[in-house]
Protein backbone atom coordinates (compact mmCIF):
# COMPACT_ATOMS: atom_id res chain seq x y z
CA UNK A 1 0.00 0.00 0.00
CA UNK A 2 1.13 3.53 -0.71
CA UNK A 3 0.74 4.45 2.95
CA UNK A 4 1.84 7.26 5.17
CA UNK A 5 4.66 5.07 6.53
CA UNK A 6 6.47 5.17 3.19
CA UNK A 7 8.40 8.31 3.99
CA UNK A 8 11.57 8.03 1.90
CA UNK A 9 12.01 11.17 -0.18
CA UNK A 10 8.91 12.96 1.14
CA UNK A 11 9.63 16.68 1.28
CA UNK A 12 8.83 19.35 3.81
CA UNK A 13 10.12 17.74 6.99
CA UNK A 14 12.41 19.88 9.14
CA UNK A 15 15.79 19.26 10.77
CA UNK A 16 16.46 15.90 12.40
CA UNK A 17 16.00 16.31 16.16
CA UNK A 18 19.47 14.97 16.79
CA UNK A 19 21.22 14.68 20.11
CA UNK A 20 24.34 12.65 20.92
CA UNK A 21 23.66 9.58 23.03
CA UNK A 22 19.95 9.87 22.30
CA UNK A 23 17.92 7.27 24.19
CA UNK A 24 16.03 4.38 22.61
CA UNK A 25 13.29 4.68 25.24
CA UNK A 26 11.79 7.68 27.03
CA UNK A 27 9.46 5.92 29.47
CA UNK A 28 8.87 2.56 31.14
CA UNK A 29 5.75 1.92 29.08
CA UNK A 30 7.84 2.18 25.90
CA UNK A 31 10.15 -0.58 27.13
CA UNK A 32 7.12 -2.68 27.96
CA UNK A 33 5.38 -2.05 24.62
CA UNK A 34 8.53 -3.25 22.89
CA UNK A 35 8.75 -6.35 25.08
CA UNK A 36 5.10 -7.27 24.56
CA UNK A 37 5.30 -7.20 20.78
CA UNK A 38 8.60 -9.14 20.83
CA UNK A 39 6.93 -11.70 23.10
CA UNK A 40 4.01 -12.07 20.68
CA UNK A 41 6.43 -12.67 17.79
CA UNK A 42 8.42 -15.19 19.84
CA UNK A 43 5.23 -17.04 20.77
CA UNK A 44 4.25 -17.22 17.10
CA UNK A 45 1.09 -15.13 17.54
CA UNK A 46 2.13 -13.02 14.55
CA UNK A 47 5.20 -12.49 12.42
CA UNK A 48 7.26 -9.37 11.76
CA UNK A 49 5.60 -8.71 8.40
CA UNK A 50 2.14 -8.80 10.00
CA UNK A 51 3.47 -6.50 12.73
CA UNK A 52 4.90 -3.97 10.27
CA UNK A 53 1.78 -4.08 8.12
CA UNK A 54 -0.53 -3.38 11.05
CA UNK A 55 1.52 -0.24 11.76
CA UNK A 56 1.19 0.79 8.10
CA UNK A 57 -2.58 0.33 8.32
CA UNK A 58 -2.90 3.05 10.95
CA UNK A 59 -4.97 5.97 9.69
CA UNK A 60 -2.45 8.63 8.54
CA UNK A 61 -3.55 11.27 11.06
CA UNK A 62 -3.01 8.73 13.85
CA UNK A 63 0.26 7.47 12.38
CA UNK A 64 1.82 10.91 12.12
CA UNK A 65 0.87 12.03 15.62
CA UNK A 66 1.69 8.75 17.41
CA UNK A 67 5.12 8.21 18.92
CA UNK A 68 7.13 5.20 17.73
CA UNK A 69 6.06 2.97 20.60
CA UNK A 70 2.44 4.08 20.36
CA UNK A 71 2.57 2.72 16.81
CA UNK A 72 4.01 -0.53 18.23
CA UNK A 73 1.24 -0.94 20.78
CA UNK A 74 -1.44 -0.08 18.21
CA UNK A 75 -0.15 -2.79 15.87
CA UNK A 76 0.07 -5.29 18.72
CA UNK A 77 -3.50 -4.62 19.91
CA UNK A 78 -4.89 -4.69 16.36
CA UNK A 79 -3.32 -8.07 15.65
CA UNK A 80 -4.36 -9.59 19.00
CA UNK A 81 -7.96 -8.62 18.19
CA UNK A 82 -7.76 -9.83 14.58
CA UNK A 83 -6.32 -13.15 15.83
CA UNK A 84 -9.25 -13.35 18.28
CA UNK A 85 -7.01 -13.55 21.35
CA UNK A 86 -8.73 -10.57 22.95
CA UNK A 87 -11.68 -8.38 22.01
CA UNK A 88 -11.59 -4.65 21.39
CA UNK A 89 -14.23 -4.20 24.12
CA UNK A 90 -12.07 -6.03 26.65
CA UNK A 91 -9.02 -3.90 25.83
CA UNK A 92 -11.03 -0.69 26.12
CA UNK A 93 -12.55 -1.80 29.38
CA UNK A 94 -9.16 -2.72 30.84
CA UNK A 95 -7.57 0.50 29.54
CA UNK A 96 -10.39 2.66 30.88
CA UNK A 97 -10.78 4.62 27.66
CA UNK A 98 -10.79 4.43 23.89
CA UNK A 99 -8.18 2.20 22.29
CA UNK A 100 -7.64 3.28 18.66
CA UNK A 101 -6.68 0.52 16.25
CA UNK A 102 -5.28 0.21 12.75
CA UNK A 103 -7.63 -0.08 9.76
CA UNK A 104 -8.56 -3.51 8.35
CA UNK A 105 -6.21 -5.26 5.97
CA UNK A 106 -6.63 -5.36 2.18
CA UNK A 107 -5.66 -8.50 0.21
CA UNK A 108 -2.03 -9.54 -0.11
CA UNK A 109 -0.43 -11.44 -2.99
CA UNK A 110 1.96 -14.30 -3.63
CA UNK A 111 5.32 -14.22 -5.47
CA UNK A 112 5.52 -12.82 -9.01
CA UNK A 113 4.74 -15.46 -11.64
CA UNK A 114 8.08 -14.91 -13.31
CA UNK A 115 11.15 -14.32 -11.24
CA UNK A 116 14.68 -14.08 -12.50
CA UNK A 117 18.03 -14.73 -10.87
CA UNK A 118 20.38 -11.75 -11.10
CA UNK A 119 24.13 -11.38 -10.78
CA UNK A 120 26.15 -8.50 -9.39
CA UNK A 121 26.49 -5.87 -12.09
CA UNK A 122 23.12 -6.65 -13.73
CA UNK A 123 20.95 -3.65 -14.47
CA UNK A 124 17.45 -4.12 -13.05
CA UNK A 125 14.21 -2.18 -13.10
CA UNK A 126 11.70 -2.08 -10.26
CA UNK A 127 8.30 -3.18 -11.56
CA UNK A 128 5.43 -0.71 -11.71
CA UNK A 129 3.38 -2.59 -9.14
CA UNK A 130 0.59 -1.01 -7.13
CA UNK A 131 -0.85 -3.24 -4.41
CA UNK A 132 -3.41 -2.66 -1.65
CA UNK A 133 -1.68 -4.92 0.90
CA UNK A 134 1.77 -5.12 2.45
CA UNK A 135 4.80 -4.46 0.26
CA UNK A 136 8.41 -3.67 1.11
CA UNK A 137 9.14 -1.71 -2.03
CA UNK A 138 9.57 1.91 -1.02
CA UNK A 139 7.59 4.08 -3.42
CA UNK A 140 10.65 6.10 -4.37
CA UNK A 141 12.18 3.18 -6.36
CA UNK A 142 9.04 2.18 -8.27
CA UNK A 143 9.85 2.03 -11.99
CA UNK A 144 13.46 3.07 -11.37
CA UNK A 145 16.59 1.39 -12.71
CA UNK A 146 19.61 0.42 -10.65
CA UNK A 147 22.52 -2.02 -10.52
CA UNK A 148 22.62 -5.27 -8.53
CA UNK A 149 25.39 -5.29 -5.96
CA UNK A 150 24.71 -8.59 -4.15
CA UNK A 151 22.13 -11.26 -3.35
CA UNK A 152 20.86 -12.10 0.14
CA UNK A 153 19.74 -15.43 1.60
CA UNK A 154 16.06 -16.14 0.97
CA UNK A 155 13.36 -14.57 3.15
CA UNK A 156 9.60 -15.06 3.45
CA UNK A 157 7.91 -12.92 0.78
CA UNK A 158 6.46 -10.00 2.78
CA UNK A 159 3.48 -9.35 0.47
CA UNK A 160 2.28 -12.88 1.31
CA UNK A 161 3.75 -13.36 4.78
CA UNK A 162 1.86 -10.35 6.17
CA UNK A 163 -1.43 -11.85 4.93
CA UNK A 164 -1.04 -15.58 5.76
CA UNK A 165 -0.81 -16.39 2.05
CA UNK A 166 1.38 -19.29 0.89
CA UNK A 167 4.49 -18.22 -0.99
CA UNK A 168 8.04 -19.32 -1.65
CA UNK A 169 10.89 -17.70 0.20
CA UNK A 170 12.92 -15.59 -2.17
CA UNK A 171 16.18 -13.62 -2.11
CA UNK A 172 16.48 -9.88 -2.01
CA UNK A 173 18.92 -8.03 -4.20
CA UNK A 174 20.92 -5.17 -2.88
CA UNK A 175 20.30 -2.70 -5.70
CA UNK A 176 22.31 0.50 -6.00
CA UNK A 177 20.46 3.55 -7.29
CA UNK A 178 21.73 7.07 -7.86
CA UNK A 179 19.78 9.64 -5.85
CA UNK A 180 19.89 11.88 -8.94
CA UNK A 181 18.00 9.16 -10.90
CA UNK A 182 15.45 8.62 -8.13
CA UNK A 183 14.61 12.33 -7.93
CA UNK A 184 15.91 13.99 -11.11
CA UNK A 185 17.11 17.55 -10.54
CA UNK A 186 15.79 17.37 -7.02
CA UNK A 187 18.22 15.36 -4.89
CA UNK A 188 21.75 15.60 -3.56
CA UNK A 189 24.32 13.30 -5.16
CA UNK A 190 24.57 9.99 -3.30
CA UNK A 191 24.24 6.28 -3.87
CA UNK A 192 21.10 4.79 -2.33
CA UNK A 193 21.14 1.03 -1.71
CA UNK A 194 17.82 -0.76 -1.25
CA UNK A 195 17.15 -4.43 -0.42
CA UNK A 196 14.66 -5.34 -3.16
CA UNK A 197 12.72 -8.61 -3.24
CA UNK A 198 13.16 -10.67 -6.39
CA UNK A 199 9.43 -10.44 -7.22
CA UNK A 200 9.72 -6.65 -7.46
CA UNK A 201 12.44 -6.75 -10.11
CA UNK A 202 12.83 -7.30 -13.84
CA UNK A 203 15.89 -7.11 -16.06
CA UNK A 204 16.43 -3.61 -17.44
CA UNK A 205 16.39 -3.44 -21.21
Amino acid sequence: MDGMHDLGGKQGFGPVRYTEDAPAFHAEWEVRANSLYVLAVRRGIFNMDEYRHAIERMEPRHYLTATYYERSLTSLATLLIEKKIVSHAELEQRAGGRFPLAAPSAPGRTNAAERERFEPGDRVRVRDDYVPGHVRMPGYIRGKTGVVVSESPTYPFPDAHAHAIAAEDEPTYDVRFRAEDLWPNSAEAALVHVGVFQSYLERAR
Partner: protein
Amino acid sequence: MSNRDSVVYPTATPQQRVAAIQAALDAHGINASEAVEELDHLAQERWVPHNGARVVAKAWTDPAFRTRLLANGCAAVAELGITMPKHHRHLVVLENTATVQNVICCTQCSCTAFTVIGLPPDWYKDLEYRSRVVRESRTVLKEMGLDLPPEVEIRVWDTTADTRYMVLPVQPPQTFGWPEEKLAEIVTRDSMIGVSRL
Protein backbone atom coordinates in the same frame (compact mmCIF):
# COMPACT_ATOMS: atom_id res chain seq x y z
CA MET B 1 -18.74 2.49 19.34
CA SER B 2 -20.48 5.45 17.73
CA ASN B 3 -18.73 8.72 16.95
CA ARG B 4 -20.84 10.45 19.57
CA ASP B 5 -19.54 8.09 22.27
CA SER B 6 -15.97 8.83 21.28
CA VAL B 7 -16.43 12.51 21.99
CA VAL B 8 -17.27 11.90 25.64
CA TYR B 9 -15.08 8.83 26.07
CA PRO B 10 -11.43 9.89 25.95
CA THR B 11 -8.59 7.86 24.52
CA ALA B 12 -6.67 5.87 27.14
CA THR B 13 -3.07 6.92 27.69
CA PRO B 14 -0.33 4.77 26.15
CA GLN B 15 0.55 3.58 29.67
CA GLN B 16 -3.04 2.43 30.22
CA ARG B 17 -3.15 0.75 26.81
CA VAL B 18 0.09 -1.17 27.40
CA ALA B 19 -1.09 -2.30 30.84
CA ALA B 20 -4.41 -3.39 29.30
CA ILE B 21 -2.67 -5.53 26.70
CA GLN B 22 -0.45 -7.17 29.29
CA ALA B 23 -3.37 -7.91 31.62
CA ALA B 24 -5.49 -9.25 28.77
CA LEU B 25 -2.69 -11.57 27.64
CA ASP B 26 -2.29 -12.85 31.20
CA ALA B 27 -6.05 -13.42 31.46
CA HIS B 28 -6.03 -15.43 28.23
CA GLY B 29 -3.22 -17.77 29.25
CA ILE B 30 -0.29 -16.11 27.47
CA ASN B 31 1.53 -15.39 30.79
CA ALA B 32 2.97 -12.14 29.51
CA SER B 33 3.89 -10.74 32.93
CA GLU B 34 6.34 -13.55 33.56
CA ALA B 35 8.03 -13.25 30.19
CA VAL B 36 8.29 -9.49 29.71
CA GLU B 37 10.61 -8.91 32.65
CA GLU B 38 13.33 -10.83 30.84
CA LEU B 39 12.60 -9.02 27.57
CA ASP B 40 12.73 -5.63 29.35
CA HIS B 41 16.17 -6.63 30.63
CA LEU B 42 17.38 -7.71 27.18
CA ALA B 43 16.19 -4.46 25.61
CA GLN B 44 17.87 -2.24 28.20
CA GLU B 45 20.98 -4.16 29.19
CA ARG B 46 21.88 -6.61 26.44
CA TRP B 47 20.86 -5.13 23.08
CA VAL B 48 23.34 -2.30 23.46
CA PRO B 49 25.90 -0.56 21.20
CA HIS B 50 28.79 -2.00 23.21
CA ASN B 51 28.25 -5.29 21.33
CA GLY B 52 28.94 -3.64 18.01
CA ALA B 53 31.79 -1.65 19.51
CA ARG B 54 33.53 -4.93 20.41
CA VAL B 55 33.04 -6.11 16.83
CA VAL B 56 34.56 -2.91 15.43
CA ALA B 57 37.51 -3.01 17.83
CA LYS B 58 38.28 -6.59 16.88
CA ALA B 59 38.02 -5.79 13.18
CA TRP B 60 40.52 -2.94 13.66
CA THR B 61 43.07 -5.18 15.41
CA ASP B 62 42.60 -8.57 13.74
CA PRO B 63 42.80 -8.49 9.92
CA ALA B 64 41.61 -12.10 9.55
CA PHE B 65 38.51 -11.30 11.62
CA ARG B 66 37.90 -8.18 9.54
CA THR B 67 37.93 -10.32 6.39
CA ARG B 68 35.48 -12.81 7.92
CA LEU B 69 33.26 -9.97 9.15
CA LEU B 70 33.03 -8.35 5.73
CA ALA B 71 32.33 -11.76 4.12
CA ASN B 72 29.68 -12.99 6.58
CA GLY B 73 28.59 -10.62 9.34
CA CYS B 74 26.24 -13.03 11.16
CA ALA B 75 28.91 -15.74 11.50
CA ALA B 76 31.62 -13.28 12.52
CA VAL B 77 29.62 -11.57 15.30
CA ALA B 78 28.62 -15.01 16.58
CA GLU B 79 32.33 -15.62 17.26
CA LEU B 80 32.02 -12.86 19.89
CA GLY B 81 28.90 -14.44 21.37
CA ILE B 82 26.54 -11.93 19.72
CA THR B 83 23.35 -13.49 18.40
CA MET B 84 20.77 -12.12 15.99
CA PRO B 85 17.02 -12.84 15.85
CA LYS B 86 16.01 -15.72 13.59
CA HIS B 87 14.44 -13.42 11.02
CA HIS B 88 17.68 -11.44 10.58
CA ARG B 89 19.33 -13.88 8.20
CA HIS B 90 22.10 -11.66 6.89
CA LEU B 91 24.35 -8.98 8.38
CA VAL B 92 26.17 -6.77 5.90
CA VAL B 93 29.08 -4.80 7.31
CA LEU B 94 29.82 -1.59 5.44
CA GLU B 95 33.40 -0.43 5.50
CA ASN B 96 33.96 3.32 5.67
CA THR B 97 37.13 4.72 4.13
CA ALA B 98 38.68 8.16 3.80
CA THR B 99 36.50 8.71 0.71
CA VAL B 100 33.37 6.63 1.44
CA GLN B 101 30.78 7.31 4.14
CA ASN B 102 28.10 4.64 4.59
CA VAL B 103 24.89 5.64 6.37
CA ILE B 104 22.05 3.33 7.37
CA CYS B 105 18.35 4.10 7.71
CA CYS B 106 14.91 2.51 7.45
CA THR B 107 12.52 4.76 5.55
CA GLN B 108 9.44 2.54 6.04
CA CYS B 109 9.73 1.71 9.72
CA SER B 110 12.87 1.71 11.88
CA CYS B 111 14.69 -1.58 11.37
CA THR B 112 18.21 -2.02 12.72
CA ALA B 113 20.63 -4.78 13.69
CA PHE B 114 19.54 -4.04 17.26
CA THR B 115 21.25 -6.99 18.92
CA VAL B 116 24.56 -5.74 17.49
CA ILE B 117 24.46 -1.93 17.38
CA GLY B 118 21.71 -1.44 19.98
CA LEU B 119 18.06 -0.43 19.71
CA PRO B 120 17.71 2.65 17.51
CA PRO B 121 17.85 6.15 19.03
CA ASP B 122 14.76 8.37 18.90
CA TRP B 123 15.92 10.51 15.96
CA TYR B 124 16.48 7.40 13.78
CA LYS B 125 12.77 6.57 14.18
CA ASP B 126 11.56 10.14 13.58
CA LEU B 127 9.80 11.24 10.41
CA GLU B 128 12.55 13.77 9.61
CA TYR B 129 15.45 11.31 9.38
CA ARG B 130 13.42 8.67 7.55
CA SER B 131 12.09 11.06 4.91
CA ARG B 132 15.19 13.16 4.26
CA VAL B 133 18.30 11.03 4.60
CA VAL B 134 17.83 9.21 1.28
CA ARG B 135 17.22 12.37 -0.72
CA GLU B 136 19.39 15.03 0.90
CA SER B 137 21.95 12.96 2.76
CA ARG B 138 24.77 15.50 2.71
CA THR B 139 22.62 18.26 4.16
CA VAL B 140 21.12 15.97 6.80
CA LEU B 141 24.55 14.76 7.91
CA LYS B 142 25.81 18.33 8.04
CA GLU B 143 22.86 19.36 10.21
CA MET B 144 23.73 16.45 12.50
CA GLY B 145 27.30 17.67 12.85
CA LEU B 146 29.07 15.66 10.13
CA ASP B 147 30.25 18.11 7.48
CA LEU B 148 31.82 15.85 4.85
CA PRO B 149 34.26 17.20 2.25
CA PRO B 150 32.85 17.06 -1.30
CA GLU B 151 35.23 14.25 -2.33
CA VAL B 152 33.62 11.85 0.18
CA GLU B 153 31.01 9.68 -1.53
CA ILE B 154 27.87 9.02 0.53
CA ARG B 155 26.21 5.62 0.34
CA VAL B 156 22.83 5.38 2.06
CA TRP B 157 21.48 1.91 2.91
CA ASP B 158 17.70 1.64 3.31
CA THR B 159 16.78 -1.38 5.46
CA THR B 160 13.78 -2.53 3.43
CA ALA B 161 14.22 -6.29 3.97
CA ASP B 162 15.39 -8.37 6.92
CA THR B 163 19.02 -8.05 5.92
CA ARG B 164 20.68 -5.88 8.55
CA TYR B 165 23.55 -3.43 8.25
CA MET B 166 26.24 -1.96 10.44
CA VAL B 167 28.91 0.55 9.54
CA LEU B 168 32.57 -0.22 10.24
CA PRO B 169 34.03 3.21 11.03
CA VAL B 170 37.53 4.31 10.12
CA GLN B 171 39.95 3.86 13.02
CA PRO B 172 41.31 7.21 14.23
CA PRO B 173 45.09 7.21 13.62
CA GLN B 174 45.87 8.35 17.15
CA THR B 175 44.45 5.03 18.44
CA PHE B 176 46.74 2.73 16.43
CA GLY B 177 48.32 0.20 18.78
CA TRP B 178 45.67 0.49 21.48
CA PRO B 179 44.36 -2.76 23.01
CA GLU B 180 40.97 -4.04 21.81
CA GLU B 181 39.15 -3.26 25.07
CA LYS B 182 40.28 0.36 25.02
CA LEU B 183 39.35 0.72 21.36
CA ALA B 184 35.84 -0.60 22.04
CA GLU B 185 35.33 2.29 24.47
CA ILE B 186 35.65 4.92 21.72
CA VAL B 187 33.20 3.32 19.24
CA THR B 188 29.81 5.01 19.39
CA ARG B 189 26.42 3.80 18.22
CA ASP B 190 26.10 6.78 15.90
CA SER B 191 29.40 5.92 14.18
CA MET B 192 27.99 2.42 13.48
CA ILE B 193 24.83 4.01 12.01
CA GLY B 194 27.12 6.21 9.95
CA VAL B 195 26.00 9.69 11.02
CA SER B 196 29.30 10.45 12.73
CA ARG B 197 33.00 9.75 12.27
CA LEU B 198 35.38 8.95 15.11
